[in-house]
């Protein structure tokens, strides 16, 4: 099966600290994947590299059917290639309404002049309604995003990803700080999304990962140490040593 994203042999060093060490990892289209690892394992840096925020010292990042290298592209170009990212801290535009937040994210030409001359197309409005429905914020479209609860902000941000119609979603700790009901709902949203595009979830919470019920990749010191189902990786002795062992202690 051809891969959606191939990361191979990537390394990056910050002031002598090797954050990513010869990392290789692949994602198929329409796949749900969880990435776990202790603090400093390089999860966030991995996302930074894929989304163009950080340039690696070496290695390749190949994207899509046309095998484009993402390393030469800017952040916004990478987004337009179809890679969406949700940050660890919920970052929605708090001064604007939910609808404005989603409208900005809806897949449409992104150039200043296209945006300036932008007219409210029926298709876009429908898309916004659909996404709002999916994330359970249909009733809140006119509310200011800053007034939403923490969980709702997380969903709004996931909704903004969905509105972009990406082919790959990178989601950083979506369930952090959520109530059990909210987690349930988040799981549903992500599983639903994974039907149409690849979803990569970085998460600390084992319970949440178990609920996602998907392939798991374990990162440690900037490299993959295990991959497979959650049960498979939790049985791996290396993983127990570096990560689970410590977290249980």
């Amino acid at each position: 099966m051809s891969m959606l994203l191939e990361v191979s042999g990537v390394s990056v060093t910050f002031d002598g600290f090797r954050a990513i060490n010869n990392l290789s990892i692949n994602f198929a289209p329409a796949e749900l994947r969880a990435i776990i690892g202790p603090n400093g394992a390089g999860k966030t840096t991995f996302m930074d590299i894929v989304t163009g925020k950080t340039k690696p010292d070496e290695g390749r990042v190949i994207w899509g059917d046309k095998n484009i290298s993402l390393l030469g592209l800017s952040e916004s170009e990478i987004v337009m290639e179809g890679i969406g990212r949700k940050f660890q801290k919920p970052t929605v535009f708090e001064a604007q309404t939910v609808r404005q937040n989603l409208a900005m994210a809806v897949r449409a030409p992104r150039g200043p002049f296209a945006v300036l001359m932008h007219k409210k197309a029926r298709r876009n409005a429908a898309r916004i309604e659909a996404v709002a429905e999916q994330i359970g914020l249909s009733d809140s479209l006119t509310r200011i995003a800053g007034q939403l609860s923490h969980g709702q902000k997380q969903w709004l941000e996931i909704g903004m990803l969905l509105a972009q119609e990406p082919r790959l979603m990178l989601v950083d700790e979506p369930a952090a700080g959520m109530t059990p009901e909210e987690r349930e709902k988040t799981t549903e949203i992500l599983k639903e999304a994974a039907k149409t595009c690849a979803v990569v979830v970085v998460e600390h919470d084992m319970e949440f990962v178990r609920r996602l019920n998907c392939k798991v990749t374990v990162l440690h010191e900037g490299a993959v140490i295990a991959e497979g189902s959650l049960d498979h990786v939790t049985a791996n002795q290396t993983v127990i040593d570096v990560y689970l062992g410590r977290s249980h202690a």
Partner: protein
Amino acid sequence: MQRSFLAQNPSVLWFIACLAIFTAVVTVLSEAMGVGLISTSFVKTLGKTLCLCLIAIAMDVVWGYCGILSLGHFAFFGIGGYAIGMWLMYARTEKIVLESLSGQPIPPTTAEISDAIGNQIFGVVGSSEFPVIWAFADSLFLQLLMVVLVPGLLALVFGWLAFRSRVTGVYLSILTQAMTLALALYLFQNNSGLRGNNGLSGLQNIPGFAHLSQATVSLAFFTASAFALGAGHVFFAWVLSGKMGSVVEGIRDNEARVRFLGYHVESYKLFIFTTTAVVSGIAGALYYPQAGIINPGEIAPIASIYLAVWVAIGGRGRLYGAVIGAAAVSLVSSWFTGGGAPDINFGFYVIQWTDWWLVLLGFSFVAVTLFFPKGIGGLFDLLVRKQS
């Protein structure tokens, strides 16, 4: 679409209505209309204030909405003034020269006319040659084009360089300040081709309209300034409505997030920076014929900082706030510095406002940033909230 836009933004309609009434009242009461309750010099002051309000709107867009604290927009204002000033000065001098040469026994050649004009204009800096930048000075149309093009191009090049290398926040402010300082220092040189620190003068005399009284000319410029302010307000309100506004405000609040939504943030900043620079240039082109003189001191970085202060006092992120701030501070400032405010006598020391006004102004910046971060415009929010 236009209708729905205005319907969605009632404050724009209110603003236009107030501006129209104000313009009408001033027109009726001005000397040009025979009533004379408002003196010509005050009409000029009001017209200049309207131009300052226009550049304040531009500043509000670039700072209040887009989050770029530019300390260079007064440079664009000055460039606009210089561009129109070059034509005004050239055309007027040409007229004078032609008149003085018409008494000659044989008609002058073009070279003789050009030499004589050059002597008149550049004699003060010890030159008579026309610098290259005056190539279009004889054409009003081309100079009007310069009013728009030169600030626009400068903003485009500078903004491209600065935004491309991701200079943001305070760094960007300092960089824009440096640009302004460089421009001012350049213009201070006698060989800059713009008469060094003498600047351009006599701009209040509009060639071709010598038969009109200053009262009429002032009123015309006042009306033009009011029109420009109204148009500028509507234009920016339109630009900032809808998705563009969302993106621009998004850049202000979280630049990285907008970038990860797939927007090329630099293009947007460049668009806003350049557009506001052009509007600043237009405001300058309307201001300086009313002021009569422009010199490099006007462009000094401090002017741009004042501009930011007006916007801060008026209230950022709302266009009418910028207008209120610019109008209030510049009018109050001219009242204090013009000796309008009564001195305060403590017996042992007399506070003369011409000396102490800047001290008061300085501390009021501090007070406004500390206690009224929303500025005067914030008071409107309080009123609206009380009503609802």
